[in-house]
Protein backbone atom coordinates (compact mmCIF):
# COMPACT_ATOMS: atom_id res chain seq x y z
CA UNK A 1 0.00 0.00 0.00
CA UNK A 2 1.45 3.37 -0.97
CA UNK A 3 2.40 5.68 1.83
CA UNK A 4 -0.06 8.55 1.75
CA UNK A 5 2.74 11.03 2.21
CA UNK A 6 3.49 10.37 -1.46
CA UNK A 7 0.35 12.29 -2.41
CA UNK A 8 2.23 15.43 -1.52
CA UNK A 9 5.33 14.71 -3.55
CA UNK A 10 7.46 17.68 -4.64
CA UNK A 11 5.95 17.83 -8.13
CA UNK A 12 2.46 18.24 -6.62
CA UNK A 13 3.50 20.88 -4.11
CA UNK A 14 5.36 22.76 -6.86
CA UNK A 15 2.16 23.09 -8.85
CA UNK A 16 0.27 24.11 -5.70
CA UNK A 17 2.69 26.86 -4.76
CA UNK A 18 3.56 28.03 -8.23
CA UNK A 19 0.58 27.17 -10.44
CA UNK A 20 0.46 27.45 -14.21
CA UNK A 21 -1.85 30.25 -15.49
CA UNK A 22 -3.72 30.94 -12.31
CA UNK A 23 -5.67 34.16 -12.65
CA UNK A 24 -8.16 35.86 -14.94
CA UNK A 25 -8.31 35.43 -18.71
CA UNK A 26 -9.91 38.63 -19.98
CA UNK A 27 -10.20 37.34 -23.54
CA UNK A 28 -11.90 34.07 -22.61
CA UNK A 29 -14.51 32.75 -25.03
CA UNK A 30 -15.58 29.82 -22.87
CA UNK A 31 -15.67 29.45 -19.10
CA UNK A 32 -17.33 27.54 -16.31
CA UNK A 33 -17.08 27.08 -12.58
CA UNK A 34 -17.60 24.03 -10.40
CA UNK A 35 -17.57 23.14 -6.75
CA UNK A 36 -16.95 20.11 -4.68
CA UNK A 37 -19.68 20.71 -2.10
CA UNK A 38 -18.19 18.32 0.43
CA UNK A 39 -14.88 20.17 0.72
CA UNK A 40 -15.73 23.64 -0.50
CA UNK A 41 -13.17 23.36 -3.32
CA UNK A 42 -13.93 25.78 -6.16
CA UNK A 43 -12.41 25.82 -9.65
CA UNK A 44 -13.08 28.36 -12.39
CA UNK A 45 -11.76 27.44 -15.85
CA UNK A 46 -11.40 30.07 -18.60
CA UNK A 47 -10.56 29.18 -22.20
CA UNK A 48 -9.89 31.08 -25.40
CA UNK A 49 -10.84 28.82 -28.31
CA UNK A 50 -9.56 29.66 -31.75
CA UNK A 51 -11.37 29.27 -35.06
CA UNK A 52 -9.17 26.33 -35.91
CA UNK A 53 -10.60 24.41 -32.95
CA UNK A 54 -7.52 24.89 -30.80
CA UNK A 55 -7.40 25.93 -27.14
CA UNK A 56 -5.24 28.97 -27.67
CA UNK A 57 -5.08 29.90 -24.02
CA UNK A 58 -6.27 28.30 -20.79
CA UNK A 59 -6.37 29.72 -17.27
CA UNK A 60 -7.91 28.73 -13.98
CA UNK A 61 -8.70 30.27 -10.66
CA UNK A 62 -9.99 28.75 -7.48
CA UNK A 63 -9.67 27.85 -3.87
CA UNK A 64 -9.27 24.60 -2.09
CA UNK A 65 -6.99 21.79 -1.02
CA UNK A 66 -3.57 21.05 -2.47
CA UNK A 67 -4.92 18.26 -4.66
CA UNK A 68 -7.72 20.28 -6.25
CA UNK A 69 -5.47 23.26 -7.00
CA UNK A 70 -2.34 21.39 -8.07
CA UNK A 71 -4.31 19.09 -10.37
CA UNK A 72 -5.99 22.13 -11.98
CA UNK A 73 -2.59 23.65 -12.70
CA UNK A 74 -1.38 20.38 -14.26
CA UNK A 75 -4.49 20.05 -16.40
CA UNK A 76 -4.45 23.63 -17.66
CA UNK A 77 -0.79 23.30 -18.58
CA UNK A 78 -1.46 20.00 -20.38
CA UNK A 79 -4.45 21.05 -22.49
CA UNK A 80 -3.28 24.46 -23.64
CA UNK A 81 -2.48 24.27 -27.33
CA UNK A 82 -4.46 21.07 -27.75
CA UNK A 83 -7.57 20.91 -29.93
CA UNK A 84 -11.03 20.97 -28.41
CA UNK A 85 -11.52 17.41 -29.63
CA UNK A 86 -8.36 16.28 -27.89
CA UNK A 87 -9.46 17.97 -24.67
CA UNK A 88 -12.87 16.33 -24.86
CA UNK A 89 -11.25 12.95 -25.35
CA UNK A 90 -9.04 13.43 -22.31
CA UNK A 91 -10.54 10.96 -19.83
CA UNK A 92 -10.88 10.98 -16.06
CA UNK A 93 -8.37 8.14 -15.85
CA UNK A 94 -5.87 10.14 -17.89
CA UNK A 95 -6.40 13.01 -15.46
CA UNK A 96 -5.60 10.75 -12.51
CA UNK A 97 -2.50 9.51 -14.35
CA UNK A 98 -1.44 13.08 -15.10
CA UNK A 99 -1.70 13.91 -11.40
CA UNK A 100 0.55 10.98 -10.53
CA UNK A 101 0.29 9.83 -6.92
CA UNK A 102 -2.44 7.30 -6.25
CA UNK A 103 -5.53 8.76 -4.57
CA UNK A 104 -8.29 7.27 -2.46
CA UNK A 105 -11.80 7.61 -3.98
CA UNK A 106 -12.60 10.63 -1.79
CA UNK A 107 -9.51 12.52 -2.91
CA UNK A 108 -10.06 11.52 -6.54
CA UNK A 109 -13.06 13.86 -6.42
CA UNK A 110 -10.71 16.72 -5.54
CA UNK A 111 -8.39 15.76 -8.39
CA UNK A 112 -11.20 15.43 -10.94
CA UNK A 113 -12.90 18.73 -10.11
CA UNK A 114 -10.88 20.76 -12.62
CA UNK A 115 -11.25 18.02 -15.25
CA UNK A 116 -15.03 18.12 -14.77
CA UNK A 117 -15.10 21.92 -15.02
CA UNK A 118 -12.90 21.85 -18.13
CA UNK A 119 -15.29 19.45 -19.84
CA UNK A 120 -18.27 21.68 -19.10
CA UNK A 121 -16.37 24.88 -19.97
CA UNK A 122 -15.78 23.48 -23.46
CA UNK A 123 -19.56 23.52 -23.86
CA UNK A 124 -20.10 26.90 -22.21
CA UNK A 125 -19.50 29.84 -24.56
CA UNK A 126 -19.54 33.22 -22.86
CA UNK A 127 -22.46 35.38 -23.88
CA UNK A 128 -20.47 38.57 -24.14
CA UNK A 129 -17.73 36.97 -26.23
CA UNK A 130 -17.66 38.55 -29.68
CA UNK A 131 -19.24 36.08 -32.07
CA UNK A 132 -16.67 36.80 -34.73
CA UNK A 133 -13.83 35.85 -32.43
CA UNK A 134 -15.59 33.01 -30.72
CA UNK A 135 -14.48 29.57 -31.68
CA UNK A 136 -16.79 26.76 -32.53
CA UNK A 137 -19.52 26.16 -29.98
CA UNK A 138 -20.70 22.77 -28.94
CA UNK A 139 -24.15 21.58 -27.99
CA UNK A 140 -25.11 18.95 -25.51
CA UNK A 141 -25.89 19.01 -21.83
CA UNK A 142 -23.36 20.39 -19.35
CA UNK A 143 -22.11 18.02 -16.73
CA UNK A 144 -23.85 18.02 -13.39
CA UNK A 145 -22.37 19.48 -10.24
CA UNK A 146 -21.69 16.15 -8.58
CA UNK A 147 -20.28 13.23 -10.45
Amino acid at each position, binding site marked *: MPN*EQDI*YEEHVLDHYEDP*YHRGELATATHADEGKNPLC*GDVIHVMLRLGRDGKIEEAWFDGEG*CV*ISQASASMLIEAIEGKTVEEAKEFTANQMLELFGPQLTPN*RQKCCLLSWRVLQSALHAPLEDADDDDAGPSFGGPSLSEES
Partner: protein
Amino acid sequence: MPLDPHSIRADFPILKRQSSSGAPLAFLDNAASAQRPQVVIDAISDCYQRYYANVHRGIHTLSEESTAAYEAARETTRQFVGARSQSEIVFAAGTTAAINTVAHSWGGSHLSAGDVVLLTIAEHHANIVPWHQLAARTGCRVEFIPLGDDFTIDDAVVQDKLQTLQPKLFSFVSSSNVLGTNFPVARWTRMAHAAGATVLVDAAQGAPHQAIDVQQWDADFVVFSGHKVCGPTGIGVLYGKEALLDAMPPFLGGGGMIDRVTTEGFSPTGLPEKFEAGTPPITEAIGLAAAMRYLQSVGLEAIEAHEHLLCQAADTALRNIEGVEILGPTPDKKGGIVSFTVDGVHAHDIAQWLDTRGVAVRAGHHCAMPLHESLGKTASARASFYLYNTPEEVDRLIEAVKEARDKFARGGRRRRRRNPSPA
Protein backbone atom coordinates in the same frame (compact mmCIF):
# COMPACT_ATOMS: atom_id res chain seq x y z
CA MET B 1 -12.49 8.02 40.23
CA PRO B 2 -10.68 9.13 37.09
CA LEU B 3 -10.96 6.80 34.17
CA ASP B 4 -7.97 4.88 32.86
CA PRO B 5 -8.11 5.07 29.06
CA HIS B 6 -5.35 2.48 28.68
CA SER B 7 -7.41 -0.25 30.35
CA ILE B 8 -10.54 0.88 28.47
CA ARG B 9 -8.74 0.54 25.13
CA ALA B 10 -8.49 -3.20 25.72
CA ASP B 11 -12.30 -3.34 25.40
CA PHE B 12 -12.20 -1.96 21.82
CA PRO B 13 -10.62 -4.45 19.39
CA ILE B 14 -10.47 -1.98 16.47
CA LEU B 15 -8.11 0.32 18.37
CA LYS B 16 -5.35 -2.26 17.99
CA ARG B 17 -5.10 -1.68 14.24
CA GLN B 18 -2.87 0.67 12.30
CA SER B 19 -3.66 3.33 9.75
CA SER B 20 -2.71 2.66 6.12
CA SER B 21 0.63 4.40 6.70
CA GLY B 22 1.55 1.82 9.31
CA ALA B 23 1.29 4.25 12.23
CA PRO B 24 -0.77 3.14 15.24
CA LEU B 25 -4.32 4.40 15.11
CA ALA B 26 -5.27 7.51 17.11
CA PHE B 27 -9.01 7.67 16.47
CA LEU B 28 -10.12 11.27 17.02
CA ASP B 29 -13.25 11.26 14.84
CA ASN B 30 -15.68 10.22 17.55
CA ALA B 31 -18.15 13.02 16.95
CA ALA B 32 -18.84 11.47 13.54
CA SER B 33 -19.20 7.96 14.94
CA ALA B 34 -17.68 6.15 17.89
CA GLN B 35 -16.14 2.66 17.96
CA ARG B 36 -17.72 -0.39 19.61
CA PRO B 37 -16.52 -2.35 22.62
CA GLN B 38 -16.37 -6.14 22.45
CA VAL B 39 -19.51 -6.45 24.62
CA VAL B 40 -21.58 -4.70 21.93
CA ILE B 41 -20.13 -6.81 19.13
CA ASP B 42 -20.80 -9.92 21.22
CA ALA B 43 -24.39 -8.93 22.04
CA ILE B 44 -25.20 -8.54 18.34
CA SER B 45 -23.45 -11.72 17.32
CA ASP B 46 -25.05 -13.64 20.22
CA CYS B 47 -28.52 -12.60 19.05
CA TYR B 48 -27.86 -13.76 15.49
CA GLN B 49 -26.26 -17.01 16.66
CA ARG B 50 -28.72 -18.05 19.35
CA TYR B 51 -32.17 -16.48 19.29
CA TYR B 52 -32.81 -14.14 16.35
CA ALA B 53 -36.32 -14.00 14.83
CA ASN B 54 -38.79 -11.27 14.01
CA VAL B 55 -40.39 -9.62 17.04
CA HIS B 56 -44.03 -9.12 18.10
CA ARG B 57 -45.24 -11.61 15.50
CA GLY B 58 -44.38 -15.26 15.86
CA ILE B 59 -45.77 -17.73 18.35
CA HIS B 60 -42.54 -19.64 18.63
CA THR B 61 -39.53 -19.81 20.89
CA LEU B 62 -37.10 -17.66 18.93
CA SER B 63 -39.62 -14.90 18.30
CA GLU B 64 -40.53 -14.82 21.97
CA GLU B 65 -36.89 -14.64 23.01
CA SER B 66 -36.13 -11.92 20.44
CA THR B 67 -39.18 -9.93 21.51
CA ALA B 68 -38.13 -10.16 25.15
CA ALA B 69 -34.61 -8.95 24.33
CA TYR B 70 -35.93 -6.13 22.11
CA GLU B 71 -38.30 -4.91 24.81
CA ALA B 72 -35.58 -5.27 27.46
CA ALA B 73 -33.49 -2.94 25.28
CA ARG B 74 -36.32 -0.43 25.43
CA GLU B 75 -36.28 -0.65 29.22
CA THR B 76 -32.49 -0.14 29.30
CA THR B 77 -32.98 2.92 27.08
CA ARG B 78 -35.75 4.23 29.34
CA GLN B 79 -33.37 4.03 32.29
CA PHE B 80 -30.50 5.56 30.28
CA VAL B 81 -32.49 8.73 29.59
CA GLY B 82 -34.58 8.75 32.77
CA ALA B 83 -37.98 8.55 31.04
CA ARG B 84 -41.14 7.79 33.04
CA SER B 85 -42.44 5.03 30.83
CA GLN B 86 -41.38 2.67 28.05
CA SER B 87 -44.21 4.14 25.97
CA GLU B 88 -42.08 7.26 25.66
CA ILE B 89 -39.16 5.41 24.01
CA VAL B 90 -39.45 4.98 20.25
CA PHE B 91 -36.64 3.27 18.33
CA ALA B 92 -35.93 5.16 15.11
CA ALA B 93 -33.20 4.66 12.53
CA GLY B 94 -31.11 7.45 14.05
CA THR B 95 -31.17 11.11 15.02
CA THR B 96 -32.11 12.13 11.49
CA ALA B 97 -35.03 9.69 11.29
CA ALA B 98 -36.22 10.72 14.77
CA ILE B 99 -36.27 14.43 13.86
CA ASN B 100 -38.02 13.68 10.58
CA THR B 101 -40.65 11.73 12.53
CA VAL B 102 -41.33 14.73 14.76
CA ALA B 103 -41.31 17.13 11.80
CA HIS B 104 -43.81 15.06 9.82
CA SER B 105 -46.05 13.86 12.59
CA TRP B 106 -46.04 16.64 15.20
CA GLY B 107 -45.03 19.41 12.80
CA GLY B 108 -47.53 18.39 10.14
CA SER B 109 -50.40 18.46 12.61
CA HIS B 110 -49.39 21.48 14.72
CA LEU B 111 -47.78 24.00 12.37
CA SER B 112 -49.32 26.07 9.63
CA ALA B 113 -48.49 29.06 7.47
CA GLY B 114 -46.73 31.82 9.38
CA ASP B 115 -45.76 29.66 12.38
CA VAL B 116 -42.11 29.80 13.41
CA VAL B 117 -39.65 26.97 14.04
CA LEU B 118 -36.71 28.40 15.97
CA LEU B 119 -33.24 26.82 15.67
CA THR B 120 -29.73 27.91 16.57
CA ILE B 121 -27.17 28.56 13.85
CA ALA B 122 -25.08 25.78 15.46
CA GLU B 123 -27.40 22.99 14.24
CA HIS B 124 -26.19 20.17 12.02
CA HIS B 125 -28.14 19.46 8.86
CA ALA B 126 -30.30 16.80 10.54
CA ASN B 127 -31.90 19.55 12.61
CA ILE B 128 -32.24 22.02 9.73
CA VAL B 129 -33.32 20.24 6.57
CA PRO B 130 -36.45 18.50 8.00
CA TRP B 131 -37.70 21.94 9.09
CA HIS B 132 -36.98 23.47 5.68
CA GLN B 133 -38.98 20.59 4.20
CA LEU B 134 -41.79 21.20 6.70
CA ALA B 135 -41.75 24.89 5.80
CA ALA B 136 -42.17 23.98 2.13
CA ARG B 137 -45.17 21.80 3.02
CA THR B 138 -46.94 24.01 5.53
CA GLY B 139 -45.72 27.56 4.91
CA CYS B 140 -44.16 27.77 8.37
CA ARG B 141 -40.93 29.72 8.75
CA VAL B 142 -37.48 28.64 10.01
CA GLU B 143 -35.54 31.18 12.06
CA PHE B 144 -32.03 30.97 13.49
CA ILE B 145 -30.49 32.30 16.70
CA PRO B 146 -27.03 33.71 15.89
CA LEU B 147 -23.85 32.88 17.74
CA GLY B 148 -22.12 35.29 20.10
CA ASP B 149 -18.48 36.33 19.64
CA ASP B 150 -17.35 33.72 22.16
CA PHE B 151 -19.07 30.85 20.25
CA THR B 152 -21.81 30.60 22.87
CA ILE B 153 -25.35 31.97 22.84
CA ASP B 154 -26.42 34.34 25.57
CA ASP B 155 -29.70 33.62 27.37
CA ALA B 156 -30.84 37.17 26.63
CA VAL B 157 -30.55 36.55 22.89
CA VAL B 158 -32.60 33.37 23.21
CA GLN B 159 -35.17 35.17 25.32
CA ASP B 160 -35.43 37.97 22.80
CA LYS B 161 -36.00 35.53 19.90
CA LEU B 162 -38.60 33.61 21.91
CA GLN B 163 -40.47 36.82 22.72
CA THR B 164 -40.30 38.51 19.33
CA LEU B 165 -40.85 35.43 17.14
CA GLN B 166 -43.22 33.47 19.41
CA PRO B 167 -42.08 30.15 17.90
CA LYS B 168 -44.29 27.08 18.06
CA LEU B 169 -41.17 24.93 18.30
CA PHE B 170 -37.66 25.55 19.60
CA SER B 171 -35.30 22.81 18.42
CA PHE B 172 -31.64 22.90 19.38
CA VAL B 173 -28.54 20.78 19.93
CA SER B 174 -27.51 20.05 23.49
CA SER B 175 -23.90 20.27 22.24
CA SER B 176 -22.62 21.58 18.92
CA ASN B 177 -20.90 18.97 16.74
CA VAL B 178 -18.47 21.60 15.45
CA LEU B 179 -17.91 24.12 18.22
CA GLY B 180 -18.33 21.66 21.05
CA THR B 181 -20.35 24.32 22.90
CA ASN B 182 -22.63 22.87 25.58
CA PHE B 183 -25.96 24.68 25.68
CA PRO B 184 -28.03 25.02 28.89
CA VAL B 185 -30.79 22.58 27.97
CA ALA B 186 -32.92 22.76 31.13
CA ARG B 187 -32.78 26.56 31.29
CA TRP B 188 -33.61 27.12 27.61
CA THR B 189 -36.42 24.56 27.82
CA ARG B 190 -37.91 26.45 30.79
CA MET B 191 -37.66 29.74 28.89
CA ALA B 192 -39.21 28.22 25.75
CA HIS B 193 -42.08 26.66 27.68
CA ALA B 194 -42.77 30.00 29.36
CA ALA B 195 -43.00 31.52 25.87
CA GLY B 196 -45.41 28.78 24.78
CA ALA B 197 -43.02 26.81 22.57
CA THR B 198 -42.64 23.04 22.34
CA VAL B 199 -39.01 21.92 22.73
CA LEU B 200 -36.97 19.34 20.82
CA VAL B 201 -33.45 18.63 22.09
CA ASP B 202 -31.04 17.10 19.59
CA ALA B 203 -28.74 15.18 21.94
CA ALA B 204 -26.72 13.44 19.18
CA GLN B 205 -23.53 14.96 20.63
CA GLY B 206 -24.78 15.10 24.21
CA ALA B 207 -25.87 11.52 24.86
CA PRO B 208 -22.41 9.97 24.33
CA HIS B 209 -20.73 12.26 26.82
CA GLN B 210 -23.06 13.24 29.63
CA ALA B 211 -25.77 11.56 31.66
CA ILE B 212 -29.18 12.48 30.27
CA ASP B 213 -32.19 13.08 32.47
CA VAL B 214 -35.15 13.93 30.26
CA GLN B 215 -37.31 14.71 33.28
CA GLN B 216 -34.80 17.18 34.67
CA TRP B 217 -34.48 18.74 31.17
CA ASP B 218 -38.29 18.70 30.83
CA ALA B 219 -37.88 18.74 27.03
CA ASP B 220 -40.85 17.55 25.00
CA PHE B 221 -38.74 15.54 22.55
CA VAL B 222 -35.15 14.28 22.91
CA VAL B 223 -33.38 12.45 20.09
CA PHE B 224 -29.99 10.78 19.65
CA SER B 225 -28.19 8.10 17.61
CA GLY B 226 -26.93 4.69 18.65
CA HIS B 227 -23.66 4.77 16.73
CA LYS B 228 -22.32 7.77 18.64
CA VAL B 229 -22.82 6.04 22.01
CA CYS B 230 -20.73 2.98 20.99
CA GLY B 231 -23.84 1.20 19.67
CA PRO B 232 -24.74 -0.01 16.19
CA THR B 233 -25.62 2.16 13.19
CA GLY B 234 -29.22 2.15 11.96
CA ILE B 235 -30.77 2.80 15.35
CA GLY B 236 -31.55 5.90 17.35
CA VAL B 237 -33.88 7.02 20.06
CA LEU B 238 -36.89 9.28 19.91
CA TYR B 239 -38.04 10.20 23.39
CA GLY B 240 -41.30 12.11 23.60
CA LYS B 241 -43.61 13.00 26.46
CA GLU B 242 -46.35 10.39 26.45
CA ALA B 243 -49.27 12.80 26.01
CA LEU B 244 -47.58 14.41 23.01
CA LEU B 245 -46.66 11.14 21.30
CA ASP B 246 -50.09 9.74 22.02
CA ALA B 247 -51.83 12.64 20.29
CA MET B 248 -49.55 12.52 17.23
CA PRO B 249 -50.54 10.71 14.04
CA PRO B 250 -48.22 7.89 12.94
CA PHE B 251 -45.51 8.86 10.45
CA LEU B 252 -44.54 5.73 8.51
CA GLY B 253 -47.33 3.26 7.80
CA GLY B 254 -46.95 -0.51 7.60
CA GLY B 255 -46.93 -3.67 9.64
CA GLY B 256 -46.38 -3.47 13.37
CA MET B 257 -47.97 -0.04 13.79
CA ILE B 258 -51.58 -1.07 13.25
CA ASP B 259 -54.42 -2.22 15.40
CA ARG B 260 -56.63 -3.26 12.50
CA VAL B 261 -56.43 -2.98 8.72
CA THR B 262 -59.36 -3.34 6.33
CA THR B 263 -59.77 -2.73 2.63
CA GLU B 264 -61.21 0.65 3.61
CA GLY B 265 -58.49 1.87 5.98
CA PHE B 266 -56.60 1.20 9.21
CA SER B 267 -56.48 2.13 12.85
CA PRO B 268 -53.06 2.59 14.47
CA THR B 269 -51.91 0.73 17.53
CA GLY B 270 -50.70 2.42 20.71
CA LEU B 271 -47.31 3.67 21.88
CA PRO B 272 -44.54 3.09 21.16
CA GLU B 273 -45.26 0.65 18.29
CA LYS B 274 -47.36 3.29 16.53
CA PHE B 275 -44.07 4.87 15.39
CA GLU B 276 -42.25 1.62 14.62
CA ALA B 277 -43.70 0.49 11.30
CA GLY B 278 -42.11 -2.52 9.67
CA THR B 279 -39.59 -4.92 11.16
CA PRO B 280 -37.72 -2.79 13.69
CA PRO B 281 -33.91 -2.71 14.15
CA ILE B 282 -33.92 -5.74 16.46
CA THR B 283 -30.25 -6.65 16.84
CA GLU B 284 -29.42 -2.95 16.69
CA ALA B 285 -31.62 -2.30 19.73
CA ILE B 286 -30.01 -5.21 21.57
CA GLY B 287 -26.54 -3.89 20.69
CA LEU B 288 -27.55 -0.38 21.72
CA ALA B 289 -28.66 -1.62 25.13
CA ALA B 290 -25.29 -3.36 25.57
CA ALA B 291 -23.55 -0.09 24.68
CA MET B 292 -25.60 1.89 27.18
CA ARG B 293 -24.86 -0.61 29.94
CA TYR B 294 -21.17 -0.44 29.04
CA LEU B 295 -21.07 3.38 29.21
CA GLN B 296 -22.93 3.30 32.52
CA SER B 297 -20.50 0.74 33.93
CA VAL B 298 -17.60 3.08 33.09
CA GLY B 299 -19.65 6.04 34.32
CA LEU B 300 -20.79 8.95 32.17
CA GLU B 301 -19.49 11.49 34.66
CA ALA B 302 -16.02 9.92 34.52
CA ILE B 303 -16.21 9.89 30.70
CA GLU B 304 -17.16 13.56 30.61
CA ALA B 305 -14.35 14.50 32.99
CA HIS B 306 -11.80 12.49 30.99
CA GLU B 307 -12.82 14.10 27.69
CA HIS B 308 -12.63 17.48 29.33
CA LEU B 309 -8.97 16.91 30.28
CA LEU B 310 -8.09 15.84 26.71
CA CYS B 311 -10.02 18.74 25.21
CA GLN B 312 -8.29 21.23 27.49
CA ALA B 313 -4.84 19.89 26.58
CA ALA B 314 -5.57 19.90 22.84
CA ASP B 315 -7.27 23.30 22.88
CA THR B 316 -4.43 24.97 24.77
CA ALA B 317 -1.68 23.44 22.62
CA LEU B 318 -3.46 24.22 19.33
CA ARG B 319 -4.04 27.84 20.32
CA ASN B 320 -0.28 28.13 20.84
CA ILE B 321 0.50 27.13 17.25
CA GLU B 322 0.95 30.13 15.01
CA GLY B 323 -1.74 30.36 12.34
CA VAL B 324 -4.18 28.08 14.13
CA GLU B 325 -7.65 29.40 14.82
CA ILE B 326 -10.01 27.50 17.12
CA LEU B 327 -13.69 27.43 16.13
CA GLY B 328 -15.28 27.14 19.51
CA PRO B 329 -15.34 28.50 23.03
CA THR B 330 -12.77 27.94 25.76
CA PRO B 331 -12.69 24.36 27.10
CA ASP B 332 -14.78 25.16 30.20
CA LYS B 333 -17.76 25.83 27.92
CA LYS B 334 -17.51 22.80 25.65
CA GLY B 335 -17.41 19.03 25.42
CA GLY B 336 -14.62 16.93 23.92
CA ILE B 337 -14.50 18.62 20.51
CA VAL B 338 -11.82 20.92 19.12
CA SER B 339 -12.41 22.30 15.62
CA PHE B 340 -9.74 24.44 14.03
CA THR B 341 -8.35 25.95 10.88
CA VAL B 342 -4.73 26.55 9.96
CA ASP B 343 -4.03 29.75 8.07
CA GLY B 344 -3.19 28.96 4.42
CA VAL B 345 -3.82 25.20 4.72
CA HIS B 346 -7.01 23.49 3.57
CA ALA B 347 -8.67 21.26 6.16
CA HIS B 348 -8.49 18.26 3.83
CA ASP B 349 -4.74 18.57 3.55
CA ILE B 350 -4.48 18.72 7.34
CA ALA B 351 -6.61 15.59 7.69
CA GLN B 352 -4.69 13.78 4.96
CA TRP B 353 -1.37 14.60 6.55
CA LEU B 354 -2.62 13.62 10.01
CA ASP B 355 -3.69 10.27 8.55
CA THR B 356 -0.10 9.58 7.53
CA ARG B 357 0.67 9.92 11.24
CA GLY B 358 -2.19 7.58 12.17
CA VAL B 359 -4.32 10.43 13.55
CA ALA B 360 -7.94 10.25 12.30
CA VAL B 361 -9.81 13.57 12.32
CA ARG B 362 -12.75 14.90 10.35
CA ALA B 363 -12.29 17.63 7.76
CA GLY B 364 -14.99 19.56 5.94
CA HIS B 365 -18.12 21.34 7.05
CA HIS B 366 -19.21 18.48 9.38
CA CYS B 367 -22.79 18.61 8.07
CA ALA B 368 -23.11 22.16 9.41
CA MET B 369 -22.85 24.41 6.37
CA PRO B 370 -24.90 27.34 7.75
CA LEU B 371 -22.66 27.44 10.82
CA HIS B 372 -19.47 27.45 8.74
CA GLU B 373 -20.91 30.11 6.47
CA SER B 374 -21.78 32.27 9.50
CA LEU B 375 -18.16 31.92 10.63
CA GLY B 376 -16.85 32.77 7.14
CA LYS B 377 -15.23 29.34 6.69
CA THR B 378 -15.73 26.69 4.02
CA ALA B 379 -14.20 23.91 6.08
CA SER B 380 -12.43 23.09 9.31
CA ALA B 381 -10.59 20.16 10.85
CA ARG B 382 -12.13 18.58 13.92
CA ALA B 383 -10.61 16.41 16.61
CA SER B 384 -13.20 14.80 18.88
CA PHE B 385 -12.37 12.70 21.91
CA TYR B 386 -13.97 9.78 23.66
CA LEU B 387 -13.36 7.54 26.63
CA TYR B 388 -10.61 5.49 24.96
CA ASN B 389 -8.44 8.42 23.86
CA THR B 390 -5.20 9.15 25.68
CA PRO B 391 -3.04 12.21 26.42
CA GLU B 392 -0.36 10.64 24.18
CA GLU B 393 -2.80 10.77 21.27
CA VAL B 394 -3.36 14.47 21.93
CA ASP B 395 0.43 14.96 21.74
CA ARG B 396 0.53 13.13 18.40
CA LEU B 397 -2.30 15.34 17.10
CA ILE B 398 -0.43 18.50 18.04
CA GLU B 399 2.86 17.30 16.54
CA ALA B 400 1.16 16.35 13.26
CA VAL B 401 -0.68 19.69 12.99
CA LYS B 402 2.65 21.51 13.39
CA GLU B 403 4.14 19.35 10.63
CA ALA B 404 1.18 20.04 8.33
CA ARG B 405 1.47 23.76 8.88
CA ASP B 406 5.19 23.70 8.12
CA LYS B 407 4.63 21.62 5.00
CA PHE B 408 1.66 23.32 3.38
CA ALA B 409 1.40 26.91 4.55
CA ARG B 410 2.63 29.10 1.69
CA GLY B 411 6.11 30.26 2.51
CA GLY B 412 6.31 27.44 5.02
CA ARG B 413 8.86 25.61 2.89
CA ARG B 414 11.49 26.72 0.46
CA ARG B 415 10.30 26.04 -3.05
CA ARG B 416 11.81 26.29 -6.47
CA ARG B 417 9.69 28.20 -8.92
CA ARG B 418 8.34 26.24 -11.85
CA ASN B 419 7.71 29.28 -14.00
CA PRO B 420 9.98 32.20 -14.59
CA SER B 421 8.80 35.03 -12.35
CA PRO B 422 6.86 37.71 -14.21
CA ALA B 423 8.95 40.81 -14.57
